[in-house]
């Protein structure tokens, strides 16, 4: 079993002088500052020699006081060992530039595009640095830098200029604010995202091809994103994805709120499963604070997160079924009716239906109500019987099987390479679950299986999701039996100021691996919060997955990924 210090010594012996600074936090976390010239070699070494085959994401940090910027590469492994390596690369603040990993890891593409548009850090050798989340008007103002002047911007409505397009629609332009002009944040020549007309002109080569737009508005995806598919006849030739239609800038907003207020924003990041977002943020802050969570609070958190997982999977399955066979919304109604029971269970504890703000640093907000165990015992068997019914129904239905089998197949090697996680990865046969890989709370004491599929097609993904619900119910039943009496919050008062430090914390979101990288500079506000969202990684894999499929399968594949674009856009 590899541990963090072995990884560090391996890098140091292979590349003497490459590690400028290092810290072994625990067996599972390695923090190292790597010489920016050697980062590519170090990453190759990690991947080839030390089984770091999961590029998990990267984060940019603007250290304005030190006049430098940092890119943090997060590297992990798909089950070979449990070390997460956080490799930092430093670059000066004037003309920041680092080497791109996009040619080494396919999924680094989007992370680097995001860092480029938010911080203005150039990536040498990146295949195409063009906007990902921001609209054209904001490109070049580098909003996540600490000296971004156009923030807060309360004047957008007054500044809007309405322009009528040739098609007769109204478009709005926002001229830069005086502050932005003064700061020199407005760049004269900005790289623009191609409009659909430009895309049509560029991509359509023959008369038999056309571009179909799916979205941004879509009735059955809980947030807008645009999927353009270039089709020839019935086959898709290429897919294009535009995200950022609900980019709220949560990571930037959280830098301007106190630590406690930040929890509210994690709720709104992925509202379909907000409790695991809460857990992720609070866990990271607890790590910096060095807080121990009382055992009862740990059990309460596990129970609620599993309930949250159940309702998220139900709504995800409902969306998928409506997308593939939405006649009369019947499957949708079944899922929503069952979901309401789970929601009412969660509501009896947290008092809210969607946005709970329930998890606190070192504990939870309030205790379980007295009759919670009874309510669970009456509801969960019902849900279990329903889920068993659904699994049986899907397995027996010949039409469904014919429609979904071998559609959108993602092999295990491909799934690992593109960096997706959660049920979509496990359906391909890779048992990669954060509850096992990076165990938190009382998960190590609990008995549960990691559900894996065999083929990695749409039917498998949905089946995995449904069987995971059964597993979650089993976890909750164990927790209800074992939950001890005791305090739900730490006795000592939580300080308003968090000591300087950094932490990376991973939880298993219903959609997969969710990680938060939190930096504190000793103040009462976070210095930087980076969210590694699971659906961000999943969305990125959609366009290559769609190549060559039938048009009718596009929604099936996109739906089987169980989307929450809000968490991808943040």
């Amino acid at each position, binding site marked *: 079993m590899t541990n963090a210090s072995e990884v560090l010594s391996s890098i140091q012996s292979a590349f003497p002088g490459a590690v400028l600074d290092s810290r072994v936090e625990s067996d599972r976390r390695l923090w190292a500052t790597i010489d920016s010239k050697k980062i590519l070699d170090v990453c190759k070494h990690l991947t080839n020699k030390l089984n770091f085959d999961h590029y998990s994401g990267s984060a940019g940090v603007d250290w304005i006081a030190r006049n430098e910027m940092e890119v943090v590469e997060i590297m992990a492994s798909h089950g070979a060992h449990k070390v997460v390596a956080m490799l930092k690369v430093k670059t000066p603040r004037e003309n920041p530039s680092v080497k791109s990993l996009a040619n080494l890891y396919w999924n680094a593409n989007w992370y680097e595009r995001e860092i480029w548009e938010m911080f203005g850090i150039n990536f040498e050798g990146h295949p195409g640095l063009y906007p990902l989340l*921001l*609209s054209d*008007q*904001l490109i070049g103002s580098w*909003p996540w830098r600490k000296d*971004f002047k*156009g*923030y*807060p*911007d*309360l004047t*957008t*409505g007054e500044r*809007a200029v309405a322009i009528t397009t040739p098609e007769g*629609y*109204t*478009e*709005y332009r*926002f001229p830069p604010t005086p502050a932005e002009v003064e700061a020199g944040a407005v760049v004269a020549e900005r790289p623009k995202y191609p409009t659909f007309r430009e895309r049509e002109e560029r991509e359509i080569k023959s008369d038999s091809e056309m571009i179909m737009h799916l979205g*941004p*508005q879509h*009735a*059955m*995806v*809980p*947030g*807008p994103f645009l999927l353009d598919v270039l089709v020839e006849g019935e086959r898709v030739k290429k897919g294009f994805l535009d995200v*950022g*239609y*609900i*980019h*709220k*800038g*949560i990571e*930037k*907003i959280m830098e*301007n709120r106190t630590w406690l207020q930040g929890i*509210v*924003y994690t*709720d*709104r990041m992925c*509202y*379909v499963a907000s409790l695991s977002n809460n857990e992720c943020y609070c866990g990271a802050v607890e790590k910096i604070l060095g807080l121990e969570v009382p055992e009862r609070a740990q059990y309460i958190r596990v129970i609620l997160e599993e309930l949250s997982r159940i309702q998220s999977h139900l*709504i995800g399955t409902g969306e998928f079924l409506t997308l593939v066979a939405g006649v009369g*919304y019947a499957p*949708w*109604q079944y899922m*929503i*009716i069952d*979901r*309401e029971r789970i929601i009412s269970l969660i509501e009896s504890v947290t008092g809210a*239906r*969607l*946005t709970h703000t329930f998890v606190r640093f070192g504990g939870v907000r309030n205790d379980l109500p007295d009759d919670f165990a009874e309510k669970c015992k009456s509801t969960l068997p019902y849900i279990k019987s329903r889920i068993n019914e659904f699994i049986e129904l899907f397995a027996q239905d010949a039409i469904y099987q014919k429609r979904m089998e071998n559609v959108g197949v993602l092999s295990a090697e491909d799934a690992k390479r593109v960096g997706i996680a959660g049920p979509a990865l496990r359906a391909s046969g890779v048992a990669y679950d954060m509850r096992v890989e990076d165990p938190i709370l009382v998960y190590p004491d609990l008995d549960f299986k990691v559900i894996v599929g065999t083929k990695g097609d749409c039917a498998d993904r949905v089946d995995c999701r449904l069987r995971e619900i059964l597993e979650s119910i089993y976890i909750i039943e164990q927790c209800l039996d074992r939950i001890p009496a005791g305090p739900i919050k730490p006795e000592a008062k939580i300080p308003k100021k968090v000591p300087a430090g950094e932490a990376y914390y991973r939880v298993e979101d219903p959609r997969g691996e969710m990680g938060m990288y939190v930096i504190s500079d000793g103040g009462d506000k976070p210095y930087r919060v980076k969210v590694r969202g699971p659906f961000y990684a999943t969305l990125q894999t959609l366009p290559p997955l769609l190549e060559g499929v039938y048009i009718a399968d596009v929604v099936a594949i996109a739906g089987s990924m169980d989307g929450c674009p*809000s968490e991808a856009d943040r």
Partner: protein
Amino acid sequence: MGISDVIPVPVAIDDEIEKWTIFGQPVAEVWFTTTEKIHQIIEMGPIKNIFNWGRKNSVYFLMQPMGCCGVEMFVFGAAPYDSDRFGCIPRNTPRQTDVMIMSGYITRKYLPVFKNLWEEMPEPKWCIAIGECAISGGPFYDSYNIIQNTADYFPIDVFIPGCPPRPEQFLEGLINLQEKIKQRKDKRDY
């Protein structure tokens, strides 16, 4: 000139029917008449509210989830809260809808898209702003990418506060909108 001037009235009308009247007018004139005439007749009787009655009981809304409120909108349209009871049915395309439910934050990138959706909807149409984000930016009031004053862009009829509001509040907002539709004055003063 009415249509009865162009197309001759059938001669086979009974003497009896010629004597019948509706709202004081001969039935024969009503039967073979023009749109203008129909409007005159509608204005005369209690039937004059029929358009607004029809509109208020078939407010189809655009299924357009944009945020947390969008998930509540799912539930509002589905069986547990059953907006069908009020004639409020989710539709997938703006061309079939009467009500735009603004269910979340509008970003700079999404505003033109949203405006297009609004312009694609046929008249008469209404707009409901749901949740703090759609009303004033909500918790994202100081974000660089969120439009704070949506009322500058869209003629919002009903505001439903909450973060997110419960589906029951959706229903209350809908009933308020129906009241508003009922009292609506048309160009023809119905």
